[in-house]
C-alpha cells in the first residue's frame, strides 16, 4: 500500500468530537464549538468555570476560545474510564471532579488572600505573578492539592485544547499526519 492508501484505509472509523447537551439533546461538538455556542455546563459552577477560563487563558493564550472550560466540564461529567483528561495519566484518583473543585477553590482562596480579589479580577501582571508563585509552590495561603501539580495539570488542559488539536498543529505550521484522523479537528 502507498502512504495515502495507508492513511485512508481507516477513514470512517474515526471519532473525535465529544457529546455536549444543547437544548436537551446530545450533540457532537469540539470544545471550541461548545464555547462559541455557549453550551450549558454540566459539572462546574459558574464561579469555578470563570476561574478555570481565566487561569487557562493566562497559562496558554487562546485556551479560553479553544474551549478549555467546556472540555474540562464535559470530561468531568462522564465515567472515569472514558475520560481523556491528563489527570487520568497523572494518577489522580477518580472522580476527577473532586480534584478540579479542590484546585479551583484553592486558586480562588489564595487569590483573595494575596490580592483581596478574585483571580478573574486580577490584572494580567497580577495573574502572571500569582501563577509564577503557584508553579514554584510559593503561595503562602495555598490550601489544596499541591500548587505545582495544579499548575501542571491545568496548564496541560490548556495546552491540549490549543496545541493538541489539528488546528493547533496547523497554527504551529507542522503537519498533523494522522493514521486515523480525529473528526472535527481534535
Amino acid at each position, binding site marked *: 500500500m502507498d502512504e495515502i492508501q495507508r*492513511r485512508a484505509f481507516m477513514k470512517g472509523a474515526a471519532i473525535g468530537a465529544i457529546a455536549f447537551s444543547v437544548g436537551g439533546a446530545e450533540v457532537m461538538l469540539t470544545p471550541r464549538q461548545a464555547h462559541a455556542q455557549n453550551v450549558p455546563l454540566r459539572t462546574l459552577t459558574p464561579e469555578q468555570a470563570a476561574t478555570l477560563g481565566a487561569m487557562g487563558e493566562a497559562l*496558554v493564550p487562546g485556551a479560553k476560545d479553544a474551549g478549555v472550560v467546556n472540555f474540562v466540564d464535559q470530561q468531568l461529567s462522564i465515567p472515569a474510564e472514558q475520560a*481523556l483528561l*491528563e489527570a487520568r495519566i497523572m494518577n489522580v484518583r477518580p472522580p476527577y471532579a473532586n480534584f478540579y473543585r479542590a484546585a479551583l477553590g484553592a486558586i480562588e482562596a489564595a487569590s483573595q488572600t494575596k490580592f483581596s480579589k478574585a483571580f478573574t479580577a486580577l490584572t494580567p501582571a497580577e495573574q502572571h505573578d500569582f501563577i509564577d508563585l503557584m508553579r514554584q509552590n510559593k503561595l503562602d495561603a495555598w490550601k489544596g492539592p499541591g500548587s505545582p501539580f495544579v499548575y501542571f495539570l491545568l496548564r496541560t488542559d490548556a495546552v491540549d485544547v490549543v496545541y493538541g488539536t489539528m488546528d493547533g498543529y496547523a497554527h*504551529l505550521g507542522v503537519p498533523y499526519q494522522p493514521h*486515523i484522523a480525529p473528526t472535527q479537528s481534535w
Partner: protein
Amino acid sequence: MANEKVDVVIVGAGASGSVYAAVLAKAGKKVVLLESGPDWQLGDLISSDFWGRRIKPAGPPFLLEGKNPYGYVYQSGWGVGGAALHYFANFPRLMPNDFKVKSTYGKGLDWPIDYADIAPYWDKVADDVGVSGDAKAEEIWRPAGKPYPMPPMKTFPGGDAWKKGFEAVGLRLTPAAVGINSTEYKGRPACIYDGWCHVGCPIGALSNPLVTYLGDARKAGAEVRAHATVTRVLTSADGKRVTGVEYFDAKKEKQVQEASIVVLAAWSAQNPRLMLNSATDKHPNGLANASGLLGKYLTAHFSSGTSAMFDEDLQPYMGTIAAQYFSYDLYDKNAHKDKGAFGSTFMVAGSAQRYSALGGVANARVDLFGAELAAFMKRAARGYTRIGAFGEEMPAIDNRVELAGDKDEFGMPLGKITHGFNDDAVALFNANFDKGLEIAKATGAKEVWSNKGAMPTIHLMGGTIMGHNANDSVTDSYGTTHEIPNLWIAGPGIFPTSGAPNPTYTIFALSLRGAENLAKNWGAFAG
C-alpha cells in the same frame, strides 16, 4: 457461575500473556485469556493525544507512597494489548553485565540465568514480530547473534543532529533496534513515520500484540474475554495446586474459570496483588510466598532528558516515538563511579516530537506559561530535539506492593505501591544530566538545557522475582512458582534486576522461553 475447564487460563492479554497464549494455543491447548479492560481494535487507535489516553488504565487505582511514588498510569496497559498497545517499541536488550550484579559488585541481585540463556529468544522474537536495526553494529557492545529481519529505520534531522555531539564526547551511536517495520514484513506494511506510535499504531507497522502474538493466538483458537476482572487464584484443598481463577465478568457477575495451568500476566504490581489476595490457610501470606518476597524488590527506570534548540528545520515531527539511534557506551555499572553513581545507562536519540500531552514539546519547558510559552512553541515547532539517558536502580526490598485497607468495587483490597530511589540511583540521574549537557553543547545547537524535574519512575519490574529456590525468590527462570508447579508468572515482574533498557523486548523473550518450556514439558506441570 462455573465455566468449562480449560487447559490454560491467562490473566492479562498484554505482551507476556499474548506470547503464552500464542505458543500454547498453537500447541493444541485450550486457552482462555481474561483481560480486565476493553477488547480494543485497530480502528480504536486514533492519532490524537486526547484519544490516546483512552487506552491507559482506568480500573481500580493503586495507592502510591514512598520517597519517589511510582507514577504508573502513563506507561501501563488496560485492555487487550496491554501497555504494548501504546509502547514506543524500542527493542534494546539487556547486556551480559546485567545478570550477575550481586556476585560481581556486591550490590543488587543475581539472575539465575545468563545472557546466553535469553539470547536465542531475542532472536526468535525478532523473527516473530519483526525488528528493524543493525545487529552487526551492536556487536561493539554485545555477543553476536542473528541479524535482524529488517534493515534500520529511516533517520531524520531530529536524530542526526545529535551525531556530532556524541562523537565529540567519545560516545558511539548505532541505529536503534525497534519493533517497527522498516519494510513490509509478514503481510504488515512498512512504517510511514507519522510519529503517532504512542497512541497506538492502527496500520500494524508497529508490532503491538494485536498484530503479532495475540493475533496468532486467536487464529489458533485462543478465547479472549474482555472486561473480565480476576480477583482470586483458586487452590486445591491441600494447597499444592491451583485449580483456576475467580473473576467478575462484563456484567459484574462472579464467574469461576477452572484450568490445569494458571498464568498470571497482569503486570508487576497486579500479579502480587492477586497472589496476596488469594491467601488460604495453606498459604497464609499469599500464594507462593514462602520466601516472604512476594511483592518485594520492585524496580523502576528513570530518565535524564536533555533538550536542544536549533535554528535549522529539524522536522522534529517526523519519525517514530521510538529512538533513531541508541548507545550502550555508558552501560558499565561503574561508568559514573567518579560521581558516586552505580548502575547502567542506556541512551537514546531522535524520537519524533508531539506538541501536547505528557511527553510533548510544551513540557520541554514546563516553567513557561503565557506569552513566553506561545513564543517557545513557535520556535520549537521546527527546531526542537532531545535525547534521553535511561538509568537503572538496584533492587531494594522496601520497594514493594502490598494490600491496602481500601477495597475496589468487587471487594478486593486495593494495591499499594511504595517506592523510593536510593543514593546510587539519584547520583546516576544527576550524572546523566551532566553528560547530556556535554553532548548537547557539542552539537552546535543554539540553545541547550536539562529537562530536570522530579525524578521520574519509568517501567515497573520485579515484585515476583526469579531465583534459585523458594528461599530466595518467587519463581524459577521460566516463571514457574517454586511452590505451586501449575502457577506461572509472566512479564517484567520476574526480573530480579532491571538493567537500563526498555524492558518489553526482554518480556517477549522471557515469555517465549517460559511458554515453550511449558508446552514442551506440559505433563510435568499440568499433572
